[in-house]
């Protein structure tokens, strides 16, 4: 049986990869995807901990997180679309009219 900390570490790694994605990709959609990765990493933690705690709460929280992820995705993608309408691009750096 694999130890809990294996799962935790795995989630940590995924989470870090997710954060990296937010920076290195200059494409709004990929950035959103990175955030999804982060959320999944967290999910993994919840499930694993729930398992080892012997409680189903971990899984339930995961469902809620999925819901949140869905909601965020909906709003986020809607924003992406409206942004694209304004500026025919998805490069986050292109949207810097507000600054300083």
């Amino acid at each position, binding site marked *: 049986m694999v130890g809990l900390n294996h799962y*935790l570490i795995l989630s940590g790694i995924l*989470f870090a990869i*997710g*954060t990296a994605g*937010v920076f290195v990709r200059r494409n*709004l959609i990929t*950035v*959103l995807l990175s*955030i999804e990765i*982060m*959320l999944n*990493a*967290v999910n993994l*933690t*919840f499930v694993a*901990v*729930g398992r080892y*705690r012997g*409680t189903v*709460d*971990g899984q339930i*929280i995961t469902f*809620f*997180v999925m819901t*949140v992820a869905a*909601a*965020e995705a909906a*709003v*986020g993608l809607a*924003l*992406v679309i*409206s*942004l694209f309408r*304004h*500026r025919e691009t998805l490069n*986050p750096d292109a*949207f810097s*009219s*507000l*600054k300083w």
Partner: protein
Amino acid sequence: MSAYAAIIPLVIVALSAIVAMVAEAFREPGERMPIAWLGIIGLVGAAIVSAVLWNSDARSMGVIRSDNFALFINMVLCVIGILTMLMSADVVERDRLPAGEYYALTLFAICGMMMMAAATDLLVIFLALEILSLAVYVLTGIRRRSAGGAEAAFKYFLLGAFSSAFFLYGIAFAFALSGSTRIEQIGEVLARQGAGGPSTLALLAVGLLAVGFAFKVSAVPFHMWTPDAYEGAPTIVTAFMSTAVKAAAFAAFVRVFLSPLEPLKEHWIPVLSVLAALTMILGTVVGVVQTNIKRMLAYSSIAHAGDLLLGLVAASSTGKAAILFYLLAYAVTNMGALGIVALLASGDRQHDELRDFAGLWKERPGLAGLMTIFLLSLGGLPPTAGFIGKWYIFSAAVQEGHYWLAIIGVLTSVVSVFFYLRIVVMMYMTEGTDAPRPPVAATALAGLALAVIAVLYLGVLPTRALDLALASISTIF
């Protein structure tokens, strides 16, 4: 019934939101509907219920606890909401915002905030956070025509999602720690493991939760979204989010950090002290050179967040009460100030550049006077709410011996006075401009009047409010 007493305010607000939506659905194109009044009714109802619930530390469904603390925040939120509704009435018309959605989202946001303030379960806090965040993101970008709005909304959204991931991770660690997300249990676990110092998980949890909250209250270095979002959003929304979101976020911040995480005080106080100092300094210093009033007030709100963090750092009953009072004072003040900015805007032109205010005194002495009072209150000069608020916060800090933070606080507030005065200088001591000066509707004026009365009342006779604030924190140990 009484089993659900605690959630009644939320339900009322949520219902009024849904009603607003439905009303929009039945609205003929071009037809005016007093949707704002629906919202106001809902909020007044919520306020009344909250008043009724006062002192009846009601709990519902195990995760909502309408103790006085939550109720006080409910009151503040209702005040903010009502002021927003009053001022929105013709702003919505003028800017041709989708009325139904606008009000619905505002009310949903308030609902989420109330939830956040009352929740005793990290999961629920997270959900509430998401509700209010999503609503506010959308409100930020509700002016579809403006590229700025969309950009602001997106920045706010992206960073919000990013930070909420951290927040969630923090919850995960807290869950790993205690096997539950109920803050009572987390508190117990932490209290038990006092000896031998906190476990790594606990520290990770504290750190990440702090990040999540710090983002919402826009503390440095998690503040970057604030100026852009505030500038890009419709001014009235800026007013709403600068006050309401702060209130809700701080409520949860206090509830989480001062009850379950209280045992870890000596571990998070240093961090938050540094954050507070940075926030106060950067907020004021960068505010000095801003020429856009919304941006300026964004930095000012960052600075105020720093002051509020001071109350949290004090981690004493005075500190908690101070935060509550300060939130109230700041709410009415900032609503007023940004409300005026919003009302002076006209359909095509935002009235938010510093120079737009030149000579306002000549054309609109009344508005100029009100604006002055609000600005003085923001700057913390007597006899205004802002002064009492600052005094209260700083006395909390001093009481706990955080002299340096208090000194930084007062000095930065002097600097901040400088940029508030820049607006005053514009209004009174500079000649006029071509800026549009549309007439202000009666409802909006009523809103401003309410705000200014509140500011002066809290400034001159703060006793009642202070006592309420003190009475509100009893349940947070």
